[in-house]
């Protein structure tokens, strides 16, 4: 457990700037999730912290120590990769014990047993300790891979999409488990994903990366409700935020510089006779999508090709083809460069 500071770090690969002037200050016990599309610089950032890459400029500080020039093995970090790599010829126990048996650290077999047992209990795998690693399911293997990071008690955990190779269902279970483990151990974690649900639910703070730059760093609420740009707003939320050209809702009062309106599906209400006075737009229902517990109304705005998705409560469903009045309760404003225009 330790704090982590990434100070003005930049990294180029040839002509490509992978990470540009990145600054992140993490307190001990914090869970920071880096979110962004492929190529945003997320994995490069992890590798820079781990020491697998050297920055062109800037420093990495772990627990108050500048480790920029320190070898990976001496940085006291562990890295969990997307593809779990276990030793197939070893049992779960020996896989978990492996990092502790490294010649760099002298741990007695008694201490190893205590630590492995503790971690196995945390992972709910006590009964699997003697199984060969190859006799596990994918989810169990990934749990062992995470467990191998946990036995070491490093200063900082680095995780690169550790759940993305798993089945949808398993991914959900393991995500909740990972959060519980982090809360129990108060580990400092820097975690990379492109899955917004993982980011929202795991993070104490989310850092959104785009083209190597940190475009916003804040709590899940801040990033979801108060996004700094179109890129951030559309990265979080399912269904995705509706982005409308200013002209599509020309009658709404907004500042001059606004070119794009962002409207989240949950902020569009279908008006019924009692609430008709609130209506501020008209729309036609194109189709209704049923996503387990969510009803999504696919709407079109009159006189334009513009589509709009609204989430509806079962009580306010309209029929396909019907013209309805809607109330847009809240919208976010963006300028031509995609930056937020505040009220």
């Amino acid at each position, binding site marked *: 457990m330790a704090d982590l500071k990434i100070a003005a770090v930049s990294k180029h690969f040839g002509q490509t700037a992978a990470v540009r002037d990145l600054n992140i200050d993490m307190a001990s016990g914090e869970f920071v999730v880096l979110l962004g*599309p*492929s190529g945003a610089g997320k994995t490069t950032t992890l590798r820079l912290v781990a020491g697998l890459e050297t920055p062109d400029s800037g420093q990495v500080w772990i627990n108050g120590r500048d480790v920029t020039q320190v070898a990976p093995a001496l940085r006291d970090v562990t890295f969990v990769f997307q593809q779990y790599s276990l030793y197939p010829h070893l049992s779960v126990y020996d896989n978990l014990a492996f990092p502790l048996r490294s010649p760099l650290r002298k741990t007695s077999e008694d201490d190893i047993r205590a630590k492995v047992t503790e971690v196995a209990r945390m992972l709910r795998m006590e009964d699997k300790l003697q199984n060969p690693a190859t006799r596990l*399911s*994918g989810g169990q293997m990934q749990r062992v891979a995470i467990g191998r990071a946990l036995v070491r008690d490093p200063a900082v955990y680095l995780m690169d999409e550790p759940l993305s190779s798993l*089945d*949808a*269902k*398993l991914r*959900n279970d393991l995500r*909740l488990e990972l*959060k*519980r483990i982090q*809360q129990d151990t108060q580990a400092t974690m820097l975690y990379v994903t*492109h*899955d*917004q*649900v993982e980011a*929202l*639910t795991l993070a104490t703070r989310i850092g959104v990366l785009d083209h190597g730059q940190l475009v916003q760093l804040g709590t*899940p*609420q801040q990033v*979801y*409700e108060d996004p700094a740009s179109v890129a951030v707003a559309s*990265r*979080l*939320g*399912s*269904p*995705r935020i509706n982005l409308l050209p200013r002209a599509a809702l020309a009658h709404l009062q907004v500042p001059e510089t606004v070119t794009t309106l962002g409207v*989240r*599906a*949950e902020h569009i209400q279908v008006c019924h006779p009692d609430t008709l006075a609130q209506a501020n737009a008209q729309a036609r229902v194109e*189709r*209704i*999508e*049923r*996503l*387990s*517990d969510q*009803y999504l109304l*696919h709407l079109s705005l009159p006189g334009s090709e513009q589509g709009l998705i609204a*989430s509806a409560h*079962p*009580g*306010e*469903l309209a*029929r*396909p083809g019907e013209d309805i009045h809607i109330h847009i309760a809240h919208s976010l404003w963006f300028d031509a460069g995609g930056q937020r225009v505040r009220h």
Partner: protein
Amino acid sequence: MAEIRIQNLHKAFAEFTAVKDSSFTVNDGEFFCLLGPSGCGKTTTLRMIAGLELPTSGQIFLGGEDVTFKRASARDIAFVFQMFALYPHMTVRQNIAFPLVSQGMAKSEITQRVAQAANTLHITGLLDKSVSGLTSGDRQRVALGRAIVRQPMAFMMDEPLGALDAEFRELMCEELRGLHDRLGATTVYVTHDQREAMSMADKIAIMNQGVIEQLGAPQEIYERPASVFVADFMGSPSMNFIPVSAALARGATTIRVSGASLGLPAVSDAVTERPLLYGVRPEHIQLSADTGLRAEVVGVDYLGNCQIVTLTTAVGSTVRAKVDVRSPAQRGDQVGLVFDAAQVSLFDAASGRALRTARDDIPVSLIGTRGGAAHG
């Protein structure tokens, strides 16, 4: 375009039975999803329909014709794989044209078919580009182009979106369903992602250990799960199960759990004393200060448009509730859980099968709604 009929299909690999005695029909023009966890037999089923695997027993009819032992190439089916295998040295146009060229089709017709397929997929602008420079989404569109250009009787898709980023997958779901609506082609689609299946399928067959557990329209499977497995697999987070041992009279509408009386849709048949599972979806739970089943908040997950509250009940089970973001809940809070009785499912704990209730008598289109909903 054609109907696909599967009769008593069975496949064993040595000791392991991958598919057990499955029978189902995919109607002409239907988007049919085979859904289930890894190893449930969904891909094996798909591969048998395509002719990439031969069944141990059973029959496969394509457009009324028995194709069980026909070679894959003689089945007039197009297969789209998860890993889009394109020819990297060819242009988009050459890749899409490839299946027609190998059939020996006339050049003028190939040109026309490729243009048509590209137009359907909105990739006309990419036709003369090299495949190697494309984004993963565009590569998948080209792979689809290569499938649709043949105008086959049916499409087989094996997790075609599995390799894509989460955010992009959502967009491609829309696109694939749109494509299906334009082509109207019979499609069998394999996935482990219930969300994909819910958003695209006309009909879902949910598989478990080689057996189809339930077959039906997406909302039917979600609203009226036939078993604990199905209830648990569909929805995210999945259904909550509260164990209780009870005897119920015919028409009973409540069940006692640890001092609280929980509501149910009227039970259709009397139930003798036995272990049951009271199943309730996260969105059908409300947190209340003083009524309902007592529970302690152990975690809160913020999801932007809602939050998932994880609780431990007085009977020791874990319950997840999906509630409004404005609803205050914090780790350590003591609350009461109130369940929407009309939406509850009841299961026999031993067999895992759902017990019949008044909920089974309501038309599916009206379940869970007050107005009645159409599926897109």
